[in-house]
């Protein structure tokens, strides 16, 4: 706990985040009163909603970091739970999936975070993709309903892979033993989250400002080539500028940021495709005020596992 507060670079990084958030909140407030057309108002409202969510995330994140590794595991465990709850609510399941879903929520998910907390490296990496994914289809089959069997098994497997397995790689960063970086892993986690979230919002902002050529208009009308390039370049620049908080050189930090941005974009694209398939625009809209977590973390779910493995392979013991 004391360690986290005495990590000057972590305090700087965190202070920087708060500063940027304060500035954006001010700009958001000013723009809210300026813009009169419906389209621009929607954009501003979207940005302000993101800013409000980030304030909360920042507060929770700071608390988690101060508590330490257990705090971060609990925080990400809760995010996993809320995300999977949204996902399973909106993805059609049948009566025969009930017990499998119960296992997914109350056994597999807590077990995954428990394994990380206990530093069972190999088991945490294979528990869901190997064990859970072998367990899920027979546990559905035993309920005796064959209607859409393959789809149902795949939907549950995908949900648990994205919402639990992939996301759990973010707090798993705190377990890495990087020579010369001991005790500073919280910075690495914050770095991942900041670059990922900034990439998300900068792609959105660039897209709104100069976006013309749609990347996959059927999947997401908001994703344009201009937004993608602008967002990725500016978020990568930001990530590069944060190299001092990481174990990377500036060039390595640029590469890592670029990878986080591109994977994050893919995460958003895949989740948009799922939303179109189910017939909703946001995971949050159906359950106003309670939802929307999956909309915020889809990019993180795709970036975290690969970021972890790259850092593990090249930097950690």
């Amino acid at each position, binding site marked *: 706990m004391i360690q986290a507060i005495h990590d000057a670079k972590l305090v700087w990084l965190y202070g920087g985040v708060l500063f940027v958030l304060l500035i954006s909140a001010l700009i958001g407030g000013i723009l809210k009163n300026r813009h009169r057309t419906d389209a621009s108002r929607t954009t501003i409202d979207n940005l302000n909603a993101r800013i409000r969510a980030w304030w909360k995330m920042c507060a929770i994140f700071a608390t988690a970091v101060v508590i330490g590794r257990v705090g971060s595991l609990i925080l990400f465990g809760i995010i996993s*739970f809320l995300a999977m*709850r*949204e996902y*399973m*609510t909106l993805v*059609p*399941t049948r*009566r025969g999936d*009930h*017990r499998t*879903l*119960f296992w997914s*929520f*109350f056994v597999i998910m807590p077990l995954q975070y428990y394994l990380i907390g206990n530093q069972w490296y190999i088991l945490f990496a294979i528990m869901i993709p190997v064990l859970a994914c072998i367990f899920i289809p027979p546990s559905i089959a035993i309920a005796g309903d064959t209607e859409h069997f393959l789809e149902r098994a795949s939907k549950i497997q995908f949900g648990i892979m994205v919402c639990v397995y992939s996301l759990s790689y973010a707090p798993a960063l705190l377990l890495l033993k990087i020579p010369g970086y001991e005790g500073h892993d919280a910075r690495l986690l914050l770095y991942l989250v900041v670059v990922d979230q900034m990439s998300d919002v900068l792609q959105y902002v660039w897209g709104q400002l100069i976006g013309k050529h749609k990347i996959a208009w059927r999947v997401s009308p908001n994703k344009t080539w201009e937004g993608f390039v602008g967002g990725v370049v500016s978020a990568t620049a930001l990530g590069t500028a944060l190299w001092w908080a990481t174990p990377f050189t500036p060039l390595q930090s640029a590469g890592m940021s670029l990878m986080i941005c591109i994977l994050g974009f893919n995460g958003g694209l895949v989740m948009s495709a799922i939303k179109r398939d189910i017939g909703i625009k946001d995971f949050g809209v*159906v*359950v*106003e*005020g*309670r*939802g929307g977590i999956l909309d915020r973390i889809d990019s993180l779910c795709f970036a975290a596992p690969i970021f972890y493995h790259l850092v593990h392979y090249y930097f950690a013991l």
Partner: protein
Amino acid sequence: MSNQIHPVASLLAAIARGISGVQVQWAGCEPDERQRIYFANHSSHLDFVVLWSALPSEIRARTRPIAAKDYWEETPLRRYLTKNVFHAVFLERGSPSKGKHAEEGHFVGRHLIEEMAEALGTENSLILFPEGTRGTGEKVGPFRSGLYHLAMRRLDVELVPAYLENLNRILPKGEYLPVPMLSLLTFGKPLHVEPHEEKDAFLERAREAVASLRRIGPA
């Protein structure tokens, strides 16, 4: 009956709200202390607790469920929950009004209506599931006639339709362990029996009123 909320009832309400993540919408009316009969679709054991927990506490203290005697008096735990914790009104499930023994059904029915009217008294409200049993949650089944007779007996009481959505996936019939998905509860516009309205026409209108509150629709 006392107007005190049993602590176990408050605890169960909090748990049910947590598990069901219910989002409540008063679409057709506002919460009100006047006497009402809340009637809703039925697909889960959580239905009553979730609906009850959505009411403000002053109203909650005076709102009682109707429980089927054959089921809820079967074990000591069920009896404790319904009788002591939620002050339920026990009813014997009669045969549906259109059965072979229409004559007999009518007789039992009249007795039940009196019991419900008595439970309403001068200040209580009731929660009623007119389908009479838990369905699969896919569609709202036909209503039994108790709602109509009770409404005719107590024309002063407002009938408030409500739709509970997704609870059939959270705790379906026959399961004991819940899956914590999100659910929706929508209260609709209060109904009354129209002058000269036939029983079947009213019951169908009431069923429609509940079914029309569905927000997401069949998956």
